[in-house]
């Protein structure tokens, strides 16, 4: 179906269902309950991030997962995409279509240049070259390119901007031919409330499209070629094949994915700043990809979702929340647990993230997908058989 094998189609269908029903699935608790306030994640701003970072990491995975080239500067494309989109808002109108198209195109052009230079080296040199380019873009956006990027303040749309194509009655925020991104309807069922927002559904549809494209790339001859490069580039060269054009194409595709994500970020909230290109942002992309499972199809979506969800929950927990949650314990023990847990929550979210990341790299190099497979393997033979192909994709290392 849709040109996919049955297994891939199942995976695709799962992502489609998850993406479309997220506003319901992520709100399992009543709105005003204590659990709901902590664990519900079904509000639009967060779900948008799930979808957008999903797109970003799916694209990153096409480069790192298939070819094994670890780019440490991927956030640069995200930032460039955001800047391009905001400029379209400033110059044309708040219609998101030209903004997103331009952000993809500009990120694509940008990645042609960076990719052409960086791909002349491999291994750690490639990582450092991409890192250097990203840091350079960041520094430039912060200082010299201030007329283009508005430097420290960040680029945003002012009432004095021309907006040449803006229609008279158009919404005063990003919209899709008159349909504002911020428009939402709330469905109330007893104590539960589900918010369906136009902006989120735009991101979700983009994610579904991006995911579909990535499955097709993974299963195409082009994808095979990229895997061949990963497993043994020297041998590829001996067969008379020039690997460079393939690598460059993979790099550009993943750069365009990042540009799309950047454009969407701007479409959800029409402002952007240089810090989106900082190398910690690039590091975050790598962390998400690794956590989910590099080289697998579903891994990136999983990884970005889990990290954004945990970030949201863990950083919300503060000392009083902890005390409330542990109130059933005797005072001394309660205080002890609060003292132990406190450094890891709230402000300390990055500590938890770092530890989680290290644990994954050390014990589960295949990420959550591998973890799921191991669990499935423990509990039943049948389920391992079905995922064997996916695991092959995860760590393909044919004879060197």
């Amino acid at each position, binding site marked *: 179906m849709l040109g996919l094998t049955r297994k891939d189609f199942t995976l695709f269908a799962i992502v489609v269902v998850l993406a479309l029903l997220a506003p319901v699935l992520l709100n399992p608790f009543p709105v005003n309950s204590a659990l709901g306030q902590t664990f519900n994640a079904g509000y639009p701003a967060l779900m948008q991030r799930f979808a957008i970072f999903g797109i970003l990491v799916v694209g990153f995975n096409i480069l790192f997962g298939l070819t094994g080239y670890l780019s440490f500067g991927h956030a640069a494309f995200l930032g460039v995409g955001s800047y391009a989109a905001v400029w379209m808002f400033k110059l044309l109108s708040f219609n998101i279509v030209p903004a997103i198209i331009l952000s993809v195109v500009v990120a694509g052009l940008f990645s042609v240049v960076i990719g052409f230079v960086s791909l002349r080296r491999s291994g750690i040199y490639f990582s450092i070259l991409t890192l250097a380019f990203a840091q350079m873009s960041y520094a430039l956006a912060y200082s010299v390119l201030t007329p283009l990027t508005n430097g420290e303040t960040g680029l945003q749309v002012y009432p004095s901007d021309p907006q040449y194509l803006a229609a008279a009655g158009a919404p005063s925020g990003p919209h899709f031919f008159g349909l504002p991104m911020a428009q939402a309807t709330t469905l109330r069922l007893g104590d539960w409330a589900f918010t369906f927002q136009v902006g989120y559904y735009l991101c979700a549809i983009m994610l579904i499209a991006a995911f579909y494209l990535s499955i097709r790339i993974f299963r195409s001859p082009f994808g095979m070629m990229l895997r061949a490069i990963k497993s043994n580039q020297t041998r590829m060269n001996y067969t008379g094949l020039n690997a460079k054009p393939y690598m460059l194409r993979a790099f550009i595709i993943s750069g365009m994915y990042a540009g799309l994500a950047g454009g969407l970020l701007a479409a959800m909230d029409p402002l952007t700043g240089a810090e989106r290109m900082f190398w910690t942002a690039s590091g975050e992309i790598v962390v998400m990809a690794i956590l989910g499972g590099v080289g697998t199809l579903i891994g990136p979506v999983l990884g970005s979702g889990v990290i954004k969800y945990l970030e949201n929950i863990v950083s919300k927990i503060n000392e009083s929340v902890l005390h409330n949650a542990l109130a059933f314990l005797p005072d001394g023990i309660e205080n002890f647990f609060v003292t132990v847990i406190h450094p890891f929550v709230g402000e300390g979210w990055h*500590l938890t993230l*770092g530890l989680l990341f290290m644990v994954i790299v050390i014990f589960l190099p295949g990420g959550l997908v591998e973890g799921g497979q191991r669990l499935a393997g423990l509990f039943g033979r049948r389920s391992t058989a079905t995922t064997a192909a996916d695991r092959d994709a995860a760590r393909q290392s044919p004879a060197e």
Partner: protein
Amino acid sequence: MDAIILQILNGLDKGSAYALIALGLTLIFGTLGVVNFAHGALFMIGAFCAVTMQRLLTWSHLVVDPTRTDFLGNPMQTEVPYLASLVGVDTAQAMITWAVPLSIILVIPVMLFVGWAMERGLIKHFYKRPHADQILVTFGLAIVLGEIIRAVYGANPIQSPAPAMFSGSVDIGTYLGFQPNAVVYPIWRLVYFCFSAVIIAAVFAFLQFTTFGMVVRAGMADRETVGMLGIDIDKRFTLMFGLAAAVAGLAGAMYAPIVSPNYNMGMDFLVLSFVVVVVGGMGSLPGAVLAGFLLGILQGFASMNEVKAILPGIDQIIIYVVAIIILLTRPRGLMGRAGVMED
């Protein structure tokens, strides 16, 4: 002319820090073949050792002084460092002003231990894994170390002044026959430069003139053969990791008066130090030192107003531009050896 000398001097202190970090990175890479993204964190821990030393020395208790009263008429309470009751008030005062240099005696054991623990506890298990995995796990470790420091010391930069004797500036220009006030330079930065020169010389001497260093160099060249000669090379390499950590820690501790330590400083330096290592040539110790000073000085020149007028913003990106040019034209870096990381 005086402007040029000033910029060279300006480049020297940053260059010294780059050179020291890059030296440690190269030592680790050359001996163990590991790309250590947590090296900047070691630099940062060193800087916080200086902070800790300062806090230890000024660790005080309240003493009630019955002979004096405060403005409410109660007996005056004064904070007296424990140190003062230990060694006497005057010595204690002197030691507190010298906290940063004194922290060296704290840094060396701490960093040797941290390096040893890192290598035995974590890095050891990653020798056979791909370079990407090593980068990732050390990157994770760098985040964790930074966050631990933040949890303990808070997110704000902590001032740690240089000894009063070195805290002013010196008018170097007058010694060289320029106008007064043409080349004014903070003394501590000169001290830092001399200090790093001594450390670099010591590391090279250690590798060049001791039996231990000779074995390590042999191991770097051909690990297997050295192992076959019945030498436990792994043990020595572990020690080299500790040494590299100590070098980074010393660089950080002495840098504390120049940039107030904060939990992020390691990351800022790490990215640049990696660029330095790559420019110098992966695995080449002299290359790392040379590239460190070179890039530091280049950065100094690029921040001259005359240069910035022609190429605005060049000071922000000069290091990256140089790195890109070097990597594309001389892939091995300035002094890289053949066959190191060329896959």
